[in-house]
């Protein structure tokens, strides 16, 4: 067997984030030892995701059918929309199983210093959704960093005239951590957002 095809697989695997040459080598040899049908299914899944994946025209989640399963669901609460930066954030929120509303993906966050302006995000589309009616609450679940915060504030200003409830996910300490190791800003925000028990 020529070493060339293994090298090619290794080279391609190193293009994945977080995969160095050694890990790629280990993965390549694991793939080599896999049953042929499993390897074929994996390759087909990669091709499928590239060929069939598209953005949902309503929420801009990545999907293979438009509108996506969440937007076309009849059991979910259409009055609440959770705004996130990236499609991967939807997976994180869905894992909690504590939110049964709809989503809106911005496909990024505002960043003045990088020239990422509001028109480069799906903010106008969110405004149109709110304008169409039926939404009572928009939950801002952008990342708790400067860009996410600026984006949330901007959208809050834009949506204010519509008179709907706009909320921001809470700040605080990660479960399992120790207060002693928290930084000043996180702890300040956690104290500011405290609630009566």
């Amino acid at each position: 067997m020529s070493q060339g095809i293994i090298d090619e697989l290794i080279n391609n695997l190193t293009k994945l984030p977080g995969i160095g040459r050694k890990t790629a080598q280990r993965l390549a040899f694991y793939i080599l030892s896999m049953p042929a049908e499993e390897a074929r299914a994996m390759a087909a899944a990669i091709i499928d995701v590239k060929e069939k994946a598209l953005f949902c025209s309503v929420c801009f989640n990545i999907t293979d059918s438009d509108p996506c399963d969440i937007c076309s669901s009849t059991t979910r609460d259409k009055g609440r929309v959770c705004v996130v930066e990236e499609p991967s954030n939807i997976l994180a929120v869905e894992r909690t199983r504590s939110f049964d509303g709809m989503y809106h993906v911005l496909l990024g966050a505002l960043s003045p210093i990088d020239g990422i302006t509001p028109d480069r995000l799906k903010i106008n589309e969110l405004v149109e959704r709110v304008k169409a009616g039926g939404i009572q609450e928009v939950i801002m679940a952008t990342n708790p960093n400067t860009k996410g915060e600026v984006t949330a504030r901007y959208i809050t200003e834009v949506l204010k005239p519509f008179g709907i409830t706009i909320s921001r996910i809470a700040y605080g300490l990660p479960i399992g951590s120790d207060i002693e190791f928290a930084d000043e800003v996180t702890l300040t925000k956690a104290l500011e957002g405290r609630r009566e028990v």
Partner: protein
Amino acid sequence: MLSRTEGIVLRSSVFGEADLIVTYLTTDYGLVKVFAKSPRKMKSRFGSSLEPFTYSKISFIGKEDANLPRLTQSDIITPFYALRDDYNSFVSLCEILELLMHFLPERDPNAGMFSLLHKLLSKIRPGEGNELYYLYCKVRFLGLAGYLPKLDACGRCSKQTLEGAGGRFYVSHGALICDACKTDGAAAITLSQSALRFYLSFMKWNFSNIDRVKAPAPLVSEIAGLIDAHIKYIMSRPLKTAAFNGGKGPLKR
């Protein structure tokens, strides 16, 4: 080699899955870019210390001439988080940071720039009109970088009779040009006599006393417009942050 210094975060750029490349303006090394491992993970020890404007004590390890040393420690001295929470202050300060990053070379300590940026962050009050502070800092930064527009005399013959007369600022010369030396066809901005007088006296003030200056808004915006045109010419493009309307109202869409 382990290096320890104090620095202000200018920018944090996402690198790979959970890493960041953080640009600091430090007291001892000037502009430094460092690699921070996994600060985006929930339990990262860096916490919020790598957010823009944070003033902290940092340590990084790497060869003396390493392009991207690794950040090993970052302890917050002043977080300045209220400035990040206010949209307009944030956008205006981003303009200043962009200017700094454009004009400052890496690893070239500049105590003046550091001190001015630190003073600015300490002085800004979110929600209040801080235009004079931003204008002052922009002009001072241009001066420290060697790009100060020449408004006190003719840029060609150095005739110092312009103060009382206002004049025409030639962007391509970065200076006021008197009638005798003027060039036909070159783009020029007309500067009113009062704006010129205001600018020349304003720049003699100390940073700490700027809150005592009461300037009419049209004069400030006239000078600000001239400075922005000057910056645009030097950079060959407008500041990226200019698209955000200088933080004047978040609703520019």
